[in-house]
């Protein structure tokens, strides 16, 4: 994961509703047992859709801010 950043998932806030799994355009996320996992992290484009859709604020993308 060192050079392939993926969103952070806060398991404590996550209620495993599966919304993020459904909305991810790349099919990165999956439900497994009682949790959400990044099943295909290398496909993540860091689009932020999962963060925007999570009703519980359990997913967060972080950004480095700089000049182009």
């Amino acid at each position, binding site marked *: 994961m060192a050079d392939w950043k993926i969103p952070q998932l806060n398991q404590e806030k996550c209620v495993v509703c599966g919304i993020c799994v459904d909305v991810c355009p790349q099919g990165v996320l999956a439900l497994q047992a009682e949790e959400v996992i990044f099943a295909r992290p290398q496909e993540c484009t860091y689009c932020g859709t999962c*963060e925007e859709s999570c009703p519980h604020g359990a997913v967060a993308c*972080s*950004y*480095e*801010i700089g*000049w182009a």
Partner: protein
Amino acid sequence: MDIDFAAIEIFRDLPADMITAIEGFSQLKLVPPDTPILWAGMECTAVYFILEGRVDITRLSIQGREQVLERLGKGEAFNLVPVFLGKPLNPADAKTIGPAELLVIGREDFLRLLDRYPVLMHALAAYLAKRLLSMVGLAERLALFPVRQHLAAFLINQADAVGEDVARYWTQEDIARRLGTVRDVVGRTLRRFEQEGLIRFQREHIQLLDREKLQSLADGRE
């Protein structure tokens, strides 16, 4: 009088006999650049249509700053709303930017024309609806204004501080907390900045593209 009625949106599709009737009530007015045409709060005596040139509709903000509500060009109309009010007062100031050629119809005459021609009333309603929609957009921008200003300042500070001892990665939640707002608003404002070409999302990087524009936002000049 040789007036190009087709240039004016409200009159564009009206039949010739109606245009002739409207022409009978119309006056042409040439206004030099940078000249006030209307003052807010004064009695509304006429409606105006722009044949040539541009007109700014402005209000003074509480801080005494002139806020441009709309910049209107050829074909647009202004001072239409107070025509329908019981106590008709101009809602805003209007002044020309460059030289302008205006068509002016007195309030009473305009009301009479509307009574006589339902088609004109429809054209007017369609035009006002379009203008209302653009005002809703403006209201939204104004509501977001403090966030836009603070966010622009924050982004510039962060980008300028790269390499210094600052937190490197920011979530939208972190930024929201820093600016005293909520994540959704930060997300929406960032997306808006992106649409406006001020920033670009590149995976985990937010790249600032337009220093001048961001700086003028941060300074409250926009």
